[in-house]
């Protein structure tokens, strides 16, 4: 029979574990090293991918296939999100603008928010789940089943054959999907304003034109291209580094989505700081 008093001191001893300053420094150093290793791995990976871009004969035939998978097949989900974002945004704007602010500013807010922020970011987050996870799982499976080793044995450059067409399709097709989402988002906000709000079509268009600038579109498209690059790169790198069978593939897919989502938000902030801050449009 175990005495309770004999158990309690052990617990309290465990809770009183002394944190040594040396261990904290060690942990900090380990985290820093791993971060730098990650950046270094990503840089090496990007450099190898750029190098592989020259091998057009390898990735060229595969480009449109991946463009279809990454872009065309992602259009429905991207447009679905854009439609509801536009509707909700116009209703929210009208809810906020009761009072002194004229209602035609609903058009301004919908246009600015959809084109500059929501269409690129929301579409990228959705595509990070759909495309990033897909790439990581596909490449991870190839890695754990040694298909990539076989490719190398056959003299194919895995980067040129597997990574470049995916990354290029991401860079090219993300802006296409986001561009379509921008138009459909604004259009759905327009229709919702006419149908659900006391706002005429002319007033909505007036609001859209009031502060519209071609920069808004450019900014959103460039951002979405960078998101496409990041999502496909992260998916590829996590997939190619997968190990440990099916479980490793699952981990690779999950981490690809998580890292992509985090990096999308970081990139979003980066573009806002570097491109919007202090500039007058």
């Amino acid at each position, binding site marked *: 029979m175990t005495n309770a008093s004999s158990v309690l001191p052990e617990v309290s001893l465990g809770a009183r574990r002394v944190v040594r300053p040396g261990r904290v420094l060690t942990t900090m150093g380990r985290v820093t090293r791993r971060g730098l290793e990650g950046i270094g791995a990503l840089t090496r990976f990007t450099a190898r991918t750029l190098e592989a871009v020259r091998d057009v004969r390898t990735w060229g*035939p595969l480009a*449109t*296939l991946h*463009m*279809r998978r990454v*872009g*065309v097949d992602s*259009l429905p989900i991207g447009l679905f999100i854009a439609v509801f974002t536009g509707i909700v945004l116009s209703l929210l704007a009208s809810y906020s603008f009761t009072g*002194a*602010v*004229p209602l035609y*500013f609903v058009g301004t807010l919908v*246009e600015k928010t959809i084109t500059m922020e929501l269409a690129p970011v929301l579409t990228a987050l959705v595509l990070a789940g759909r495309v990033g996870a897909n790439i990581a799982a596909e490449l991870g499976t190839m890695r754990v089943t040694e298909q990539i080793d076989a490719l190398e044995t056959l003299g194919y450059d895995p980067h040129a054959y597997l990574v470049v067409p995916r990354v290029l399709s991401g860079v*090219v*097709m993300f802006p*296409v999907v986001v*561009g*379509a989402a*921008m*138009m459909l988002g604004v259009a759905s906000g327009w229709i919702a304003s006419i149908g659900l709000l006391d706002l005429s079509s002319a007033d909505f*268009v007036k609001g*859209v*034109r*009031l502060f*519209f*600038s*071609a920069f808004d*579109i450019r900014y959103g498209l460039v951002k979405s291209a960078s998101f496409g690059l990041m999502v496909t790169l992260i998916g590829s790198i996590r997939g190619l580094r997968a190990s440990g069978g099916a479980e490793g593939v699952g981990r690779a897919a999950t981490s690809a989505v998580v890292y992509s989502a985090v990096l999308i938000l970081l990139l979003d902030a980066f573009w806002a700081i570097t491109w919007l801050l202090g500039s007058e449009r």
Partner: protein
Amino acid sequence: MKRSNDFLVGAIVLLVVLTLTGATLWVKQTDIGERRSKVVARFRDVGNARVGNAVVIRGVRAGTIEAIELARGGWVHVRMNLDRSMQLPSSPVVLLNESSLFGEWQATITPRSALPHDETVQAQVSESSGGGEVLPGAILPDIAKLTAVAGQIAGDVANVAGRVEVAFDERAARELRSSIRNFADLSTTLNHTVRTHAGDLDTLSRGLQSAVKSLNQTAASAAQIAGRVDSSSSSGEIRQIVDDMSHAAAELRRTSSQVRAMSEQMSATQSRLDAFLTNGDSVLVKLNSGQGSLGLLLNDPSLYHNSDSLLTQLRGLVTEVRTNPKKFVSVRIF
């Protein structure tokens, strides 16, 4: 499969690019094919006017600002796109002003005669005139400046209010309160007076109305009398009245003479009465002074006492007689 992928991707990319480009051009109202006329105006400063802001003629949107660029001589040239159907007003001037509280600016093309009566604007227009094909322009003060001035004024007012607060102590408040109360009393009194006088005025008015009515009636009566007089004079009744009047006058004269005679008789009677009263008065004086027998009788108290004593004695005698008549009366027949 590969060809279908190529086609599908190409079609989608082309569709999205073309649609996005078209939408952008439509929203920006880009003039494709130069279907619009260009107008350039010059300003010293363009405030917050931006490319894409509306150009308005007589309140109607007629185009947009296409470009804003610096020019020689310290000028800023604003190039505007206008619909070809739009006709500029005579002697046009371009004003840059805020079109709302939310930072929207617009360029208003207006005739010089319709410029606001503002010295600054007039001076700007005069300065920017003479630029050939370039229209003169002026900038109206934006709401931010007006707000800043209003804020300054509000600060001054607050300052003055602070000073008033310093000067306006408790005593001043009491005096002011008293003054207000007095004023209220005065107002009440004035109100009462006005009401009273309003009543008087009503009464006076009513009296005046009544007087006027009476005057009207009198006038009507006078007119009636005049009519009667007219008719009387025409029918000989006046002669009859005059005859009656002379007869009455004769009667009155006769009565008057009778009254005069009566008055003379009355005068004689009065003289006799005066003499009687004078004599009576002398008699009474004598009586009062105790002269003569009657005077002595009235004024001598001994006589009263004697008489009283006599009466007492007489009363005793009568009593004695009643008691013992035989003592005093002796009847003997034989």
